[in-house]
């Protein structure tokens, strides 16, 4: 459905900053009918890549085929075959969902009768019935989001781009949105989405790619990615500083790496079940009290951290990042 080779885009910076290479050779493959998650910290080139694939930006170099069409040669044909839902959505406050759906459908060349039929079908499919004829300014955040996605799908595209479809939604609306996205896949659509939530990518996506510094750092199924970080994670809850505990495990052969958190220590070990008795014995010998101990499989969070050196959740501003990182290691 999507295939890109060495896709590039740079922006001219303001003043003396020169050009910023936002996307530096992205190779991506998205298969037909899958939910593809595109992850990356802010400024990594995630949005730029998405906007290029959706014909909103012209690539500087590289090749891309989107929905079977050459993106650079015939963006107009790509537009006919894709749907795109931006993060902010785009509905006039004074219009109703039904009117917007009909207009959107007519813009794709459908007749008045066909547009009416498609709008009614979308309203049914996305369960917009209760508010479809009210003006959009009365909609809740979750309702608006559903209308946005219905608008992106009204012409029956083969591929839909969703830019952070669940950002800003309450947990219930988010769960609803996940069902909606799965339903789109069941109708045969390919879904390309970006998200800030790794558990969302894990639960929802068939495959994910992580972009950092304008390049793809890893691509695969969530299970594959987690397997990259072999072994298990043991998180020790500590009362007070983790310094002493950290020094304790530097020489232990079963500990591959460590990460010190606020009031906790995270150990990456080969086999968690076997390591825990050793860990407990070492702590006991040194008289370090433990408030909790937790064993879990690596999450996408751990993958993200390992591949980008950053956590997706708290995104510090770019210049402050190195300082913060060293400060937390030293603490």
């Amino acid at each position: 459905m999507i295939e890109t080779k060495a896709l590039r885009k740079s922006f001219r910076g303001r003043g003396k900053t020169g050009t910023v290479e936002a996307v530096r050779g992205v190779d991506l493959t998205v298969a037909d009918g899958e939910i593809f998650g595109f992850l990356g910290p802010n400024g990594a080139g995630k949005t730029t890549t998405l906007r290029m694939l959706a014909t909103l930006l012209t690539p500087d170099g590289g090749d891309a085929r989107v929905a079977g069409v050459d993106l650079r040669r015939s963006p107009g044909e790509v537009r006919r075959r894709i749907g795109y839902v931006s993060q902010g959505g785009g509905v006039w406050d004074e219009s109703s969902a039904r009117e917007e759906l009909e207009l959107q459908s007519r813009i794709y060349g459908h007749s008045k009768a066909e547009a009416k039929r498609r709008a009614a079908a979308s309203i049914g499919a996305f369960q917009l019935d209760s508010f479809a004829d009210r003006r959009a300014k009365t909609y809740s955040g979750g309702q608006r989001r559903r209308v946005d996605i219905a608008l992106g799908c009204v012409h029956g595209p083969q591929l839909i781009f969703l830019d952070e479809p669940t950002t800003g939604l309450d947990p219930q609306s988010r769960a609803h949105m996940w069902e909606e996205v799965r339903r789109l896949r069941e109708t045969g659509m390919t879904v390309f989405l970006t998200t800030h939530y790794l558990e969302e990518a894990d639960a929802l996506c068939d495959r994910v790619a992580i972009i950092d510094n304008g390049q793809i750092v890893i691509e695969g199924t969530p299970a594959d990615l987690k397997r990259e970080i072999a072994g298990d994670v043991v998180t020790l809850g500590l009362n007070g500083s983790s310094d002493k505990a950290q020094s304790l495990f530097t020489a232990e052969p079963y500990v591959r790496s460590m990460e010190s958190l606020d009031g906790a220590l995270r150990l990456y070990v080969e086999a968690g079940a076997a390591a825990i008795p050793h860990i407990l014995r070492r702590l006991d010998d040194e008289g370090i009290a433990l408030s909790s101990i937790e064993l879990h499989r690596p999450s996408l969070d751990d993958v993200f951290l390992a591949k980008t050196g950053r956590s997706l959740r708290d995104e510090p501003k770019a210049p402050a990042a190195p300082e913060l990182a060293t400060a937390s290691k030293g603490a």
Partner: protein
Amino acid sequence: MKFLRDTWLIFTRQVQLQIRQPVWIIVGLLQPLFFLLLFGPLLQAMWPGSRADAYQWFIPGLLVQMAMFGSLFAGFGIIAELRAGVIERMRVTPVSRVALLFGRTGRDILTLFVQCLLLVLLAIPFGLNVEVGPLVLMFGMIALIGALCSSVSYGLGLLTRSEDALAPIMNTFSFPLLLTAGILLPLSNKAPGWLQGVGDVNPFSWAADASRELFLGHWNVGVVWQALAILGGLAVIGVIWGAREFARSVR
């Protein structure tokens, strides 16, 4: 064909939105009404001729002013639409880019027609003399002014993408254009020569002169056709520039 169809789709949606938010039609009409009610009596008192003469001179110019000011600020609407994400939603569809501009300009001209018609009707009790034939030409000229001013305003709105930048630009240009157009007071006898010279190169002063001739029932005089030709030429240039700006930034 597709371009005309898309223009019609955008136009009808824009008109529908305008009707649901009629405050803009009223605000646009209020300003000339203030001039009519708060400035008209002063002008009339200073006018050498009769009361009807004063309004017969003043109201045609006021229509030109309303056409200018009603459409020069259209660019603010496009900035709001950019922010609401509506423009971006349209950009990923195969909709004709120029239709996005023409649909909106058409809406602006229709709004001007409604406002100008109301002002003409309100001015009749003040002694304004109206004939149908010249009035049709007058509305043609209003359409040209609307097409010119709103296209330029949309172009500037897309260039600046910020109300904070657009407002001072619009105020800086619109007031000198208004003052040298001889709309509030005649430039012809009292103005110093250089100011008359400035008025002569201001297309809106031609529009105001032509408009007065039309309301006197003189439609086949030189200044009317000259004004229509000048504004027509400028409207074509303005629309082409606005359309290019749309096509460039709304690719």
